[in-house]
């Protein structure tokens, strides 16, 4: 299998192939081969030995890839099958920006209305979750196309709060 693997905005071509022997794989990262020996070590846990170096890896599926935990450090790996093309290519800059609820919670205040121009970092709504008020800010400057929410409303993770154009 060949994937385009993106970690922290940096994309590499990774080819993974099962080798001979239990748990043996070869992973080529931008052509560089790595021989690894992988064993399950419990739920969401694997032990990886690469060139004599031992790694304990925890990983869980996340949208479009995995969240990987390496000795206390967290990395997000986005995977796209290279053969299928760029299914999740980043949207062109300047397109509409969806500001979504990053967590479930209650909307305490809606600070903008449709048609209003906002600057990057300007507060859009205030959400209460886990006893704290959190201001959700604009990821970039733009005009509010839609703000389909009301004060006092409870929202789930991913709910559209504000659409910027």
């Amino acid at each position: 299998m060949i994937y385009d693997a993106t970690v922290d905005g940096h994309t590499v071509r990774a080819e993974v192939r099962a080798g001979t022997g239990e748990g043996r794989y070869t992973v080529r990262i931008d052509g560089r081969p790595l021989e690894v020996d992988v064993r399950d070590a419990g739920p969401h846990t694997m032990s990886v030995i690469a060139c004599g170096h031992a790694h304990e890896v925890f990983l869980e599926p996340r949208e479009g890839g995995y969240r990987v935990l390496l000795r206390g450090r967290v990395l997000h790996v986005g995977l796209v099958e290279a053969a299928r093309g760029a299914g999740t290519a980043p949207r062109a800059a300047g397109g509409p920006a969806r500001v979504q609820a990053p967590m479930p919670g209650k909307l305490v205040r809606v600070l903008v209305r449709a048609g209003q121009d906002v600057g990057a970092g300007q507060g859009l709504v205030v959400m209460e979750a886990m006893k704290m008020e959190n201001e959700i800010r604009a990821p970039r400057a733009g005009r509010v196309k839609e703000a389909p929410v009301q004060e006092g409303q409870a929202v789930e993770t991913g709910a559209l709060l504000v659409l910027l154009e």
Partner: protein
Amino acid sequence: MSSFRRILIANRGEIAVRIARACRELDIASVAVYSEADRAALHVRMADEAFAIGPAPSRESYLRIDRILEVARRSGADAVHPGYGFLAENAAFARACEEAGIVFIGPRGETIALMGEKTSARRLAVEAGVPVVPGTLAPLDDLDLLRGEAERIGLPIMIKAAAGGGGKGLRLVRDASLLAAAAERARSEALSAFGDGRVYLEKALERPHHIEIQVLADHHGHTVHVFERECSIQRRHQKVIEESPSPLVTPELRERMGALAVALAERAGYRNAGTLEFLVDAGGHPYFLEMNTRLQVEHPVTEMVTGLDLVKLQIRVAQGEPLPFAQADLRQRGHAIECRIYAEDPAQGFLPSPGRIVALRPPSGPGLRDDSGVYEGWDVPIHYDPLISKLVAWGTDRAEAIARMRRAVSEYAVLGITTTLPLFERVLRHPAFVAGDIDTGFIESHLGELLRAPSDEDRDMAVVAATVQALRDRQSARAQAPVPAGTTSAWRARGWRDLGPAR
């Protein structure tokens, strides 16, 4: 003097578990209370008895004095331990317990009222000759008055809830034009958290250390201090890392702050465990900030360096026993550090990250303590404080404690939710932290470095693990067809355990 037979724990999460453990060691039955969201919570599993007290929102359960006292009567509890947060600093609750003939494990209701109203505590400190942070000595209701006082004190300024604590209802203002909006936010948050929206002003000191002194007082007129805790590493004005001793505090400053703390506690007629918070400026001058009339979240740090069990001492003092030691008997031994593990995402401005913990592997080994309130498979609810655990490391000196904590954080795995653990991994390696060069702005000013890009080696290993797993997932999906398309859906449907090794 009478021994308790049954203690009701009016709290949830890790602190309820902590108190249940103390009860078990003292051979006292523990009574848990729980909301509908907490029926399967760890604190219910750890208690001897458990009673439902209402729906998930804390206002309808953990803050319901009437229901909690009803459970106390029904279960025959002779004392109530309030933990921290919720009703711990609610004078009406302490009084209601006293009136119901149930011992409130803490100070008298009147002391809570006196010290809980932050401006009356400031006035008392001034009377006791304890220096306070410059600011107002009474709450301000009027915006014009607030503006005038802010001008007099000078920016930057802190707007603080008079009934406050725990960083709620607190706003830092550097720009006069933002004063009104910040005051409104502080009022609204304070009203929601404490049912009291009054605020007051304090001068914001530049790069202060936040250092607190633990005190213990019995019912026989003995008050001692149990040294300091350094609490400068904060986010959103809430502590995330605490340690004892403080790298800043000299033996002379320790003695001075200890004496100030004891003087103020005695003046307040204080009983049981309490904490006096101070800001210490770059010149080593302490200013009294506020008193917390309860057990602190970070009490294990003090327990690790003194060998005391503060929760058991609280219970013994509440039973009427005298403190079993004098000031001269107390010693600090070695160094302890605590990291508060929150269900929050540091990369997204510390937004809460509730959800199911799909895998959990706490660290173990020498010198560690993990005060957790969760377990693998538990859903961290959205309704409460996002603290899931407190990890504490002890070492013979600060360097060993830091090395141990680093090691512990590298072992601690929490999957399913995002936590502050990766942030600690970075903080504990930061040269300024290692050198003890810390202040309350540390995380804010170093956040860029603390969230820096991963190393090439880590990146490679993450790609290896993810692609191998994707391949194995795909192969087992094929072997067990039909399954939905996509690499992650089969995982979700079947879980890791069901997936055999690659064939």
